[in-house]
């Protein structure tokens, strides 16, 4: 996930009154800016975006780079068109604004919308481009609106001067019926450097509804490892939530309610970072799995870390024993599954339970707490969920010790 700080330069010169993009150039530009802001902040919550005008009352910074989407969208309100755009000054001011970003590790990027003719010399633009390249600033140019003879060449020269390892792009959007934002979605400006198309697609779909396009906002075709990791952590979180719900209410099958889904959606996002690591290592062999356990434990603890480790522990154990795999798989699914009765019979077999616990790392069957657990469970063979609770709690406790 790319950590970026972006400055968007808006062209609000008189040329923006033209209606060759519907409803007007300025409106189309505003929609595109909103879309970009949404996509950037969604792809990484630590991304910051700032907005400035190139014309109107002059080159002014409306919003300094911030991750607060509301502020960014609000400042676009009530902007007026007028005067002429000052491209060179705007790019330089944007560079200064990025210099003062709060998190120095963010990559610097400037996105320029230029719809009016470019009055500057090619030479001037190239010098500016070189300066940007020296300061490690990437530049994206959206060329729309007026097209005189030299404008595309000047902008291409600018991009060529800035470009280093294909970080800067230019998009020419000819006038027509399509919306500016739709054209931009498919361009590298949105897709960025890695798999951002999923985000952009879901951002587009989510613009009004707020629902995510795919299950977890990630297209499984684009990034299968991430999707797998998210699904696993989602299930893990769901199982944990179940356990907590059972313990609290002693109720029956209250899973899959919308609120827990929402909680899990948030939990899923926070688990993204460790899930990233998990995803990369999960498909490898046992050594890698142990490493991943160590990594997960060394990361921020709490239930999520323990849950990920528990997941890994169970996954590792599952690799060894087919029956165990079946048991574990059923234990993390909804208790409404028809296999419940089968499960309870399985767990009534005390020796089987012992063998399961033996194969789990870090569990000592001679431990008195384990013995008590087994004793209590033997008497209540049908209560599958309590078994799950007990097992999970024990695992978490043993890891947290």
């Amino acid at each position: 996930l790319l950590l970026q700080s972006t400055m968007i330069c808006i062209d609000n010169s008189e040329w923006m009154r033209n209606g060759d993009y519907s409803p007007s150039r300025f409106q189309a530009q505003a929609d595109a800016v909103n879309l970009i802001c949404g996509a950037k902040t969604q792809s990484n919550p630590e991304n910051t975006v700032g907005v400035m005008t190139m014309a109107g009352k002059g080159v002014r910074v409306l919003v300094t780079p911030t991750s607060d989407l509301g502020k960014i969208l609000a400042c676009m309100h009530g902007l007026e068109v007028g005067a002429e755009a000052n491209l060179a000054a705007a790019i330089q001011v944007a560079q200064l604004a990025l210099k003062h970003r709060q998190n120095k590790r963010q990559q610097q990027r400037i996105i320029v919308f230029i719809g009016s003719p470019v009055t500057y010399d090619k030479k001037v633009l190239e010098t500016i481009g070189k300066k940007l390249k020296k300061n490690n600033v990437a530049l994206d140019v959206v060329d729309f609106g007026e097209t005189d003879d030299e404008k595309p060449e000047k902008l291409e020269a600018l991009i060529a001067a800035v470009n280093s390892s294909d970080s800067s792009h230019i998009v020419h959007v000819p006038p027509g019926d399509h919306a500016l934002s739709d054209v931009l979605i498919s361009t590298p400006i949105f897709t960025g450097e890695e798999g951002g198309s999923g985000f952009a697609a879901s951002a587009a779909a989510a613009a009004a509804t707020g629902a995510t396009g795919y299950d977890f906002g990630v297209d499984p075709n684009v990034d299968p490892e991430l999707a797998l990791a998210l699904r696993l952590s989602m299930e893990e979180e769901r199982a944990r939530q179940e356990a907590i719900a059972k313990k609290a209410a002693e109720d029956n099958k209250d899973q899959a309610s919308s609120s827990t889904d929402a909680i899990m959606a948030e939990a899923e996002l926070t688990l993204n970072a460790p899930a990233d690591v998990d995803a990369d290592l999960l498909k490898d062999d046992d050594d890698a799995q142990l490493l991943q356990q160590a990594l997960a434990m060394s990361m921020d603890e709490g239930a999520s870390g323990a849950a990920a480790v528990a997941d890994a522990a169970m996954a590792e154990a599952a690799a060894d024993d087919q029956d165990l795999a079946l048991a574990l798989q059923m234990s993390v699914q909804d208790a409404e599954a028809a296999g419940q009765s089968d499960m309870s019979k399985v767990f009534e077999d005390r020796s089987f339970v012992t063998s399961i616990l033996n194969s789990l790392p870090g569990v000592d069957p001679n431990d008195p707490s384990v013995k008590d657990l087994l004793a209590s469970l033997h008497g209540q063979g049908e209560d599958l969920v309590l078994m799950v609770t007990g097992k999970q709690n024990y695992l978490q406790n043993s890891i947290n010790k």
Partner: protein
Amino acid sequence: MDVVKAAQLSGRTLEKVVVHPLVLLSIVDHYNRVARDTRKRVVGVLLGTSSRGVVDVTNSYAVPFEEDDKDPRIWFLDHNYHESMFSMFKRINAKEHVVGWYSTGPKLKENDLDVHALFTNYVPNPVLVIIDVQPKELGIPTKAYYAVEEVKENATQKSQKVFVHVPSEIAAHEVEEIGVEHLLRDVKDTTISTLATEVSSKLAALKGLDARLTEIRGYLDLVIEGKLPLNHEILYHLQDVFNLLPNLNVNELIKAFAGENK
């Protein structure tokens, strides 16, 4: 942003700017932190109160500011930073409003009018105080200005904003004076006797007077040569100064000073 009450909008012209010692200390500290050995200047916001034509500057804080050396039109001041900082300061002392901004100059720069225009969003008539952090001459290190629309006589050009100088002074509340005295204890040398300190301070005062007289003379020379326009107000002030000088040629006075009273 800041709700300015109607009384403050009364349009009273500024007559005086009072700067408190805390402000001077903060500004010097800001300069030392950021731009000590460079030729850059630092900029920040001034807080205080304004009433009856007197602006009382009691507090200040720095804001990120950057400008291009070669092109004065390129500058950046983080106004989001200022807004968040001001909301925090407001919780400490609700009576302090934004009254203007400061710059370490040491002189006025070309983009000062643009930066000044940015501050009119936060206060109707902001005041710019230039602090000279490395003063080479005697006298107070502050110079205060505010912007006024100047309409050219023949009304052919668009009216411009121009900076007008306003007198400033350093003053403090009693509690602040106690603090300043404490700090001065380290700066002053207590081994000198009081007579020596009085003589040295008299000497400094005379030096200051001499410097001002030289400046007045230089100004009058330029006016006579026609290089500076004639300004009646300044001449009225000078005339008052000369009128206040005592006439020592009167006989009674000479006798009173030189005669013996037996």
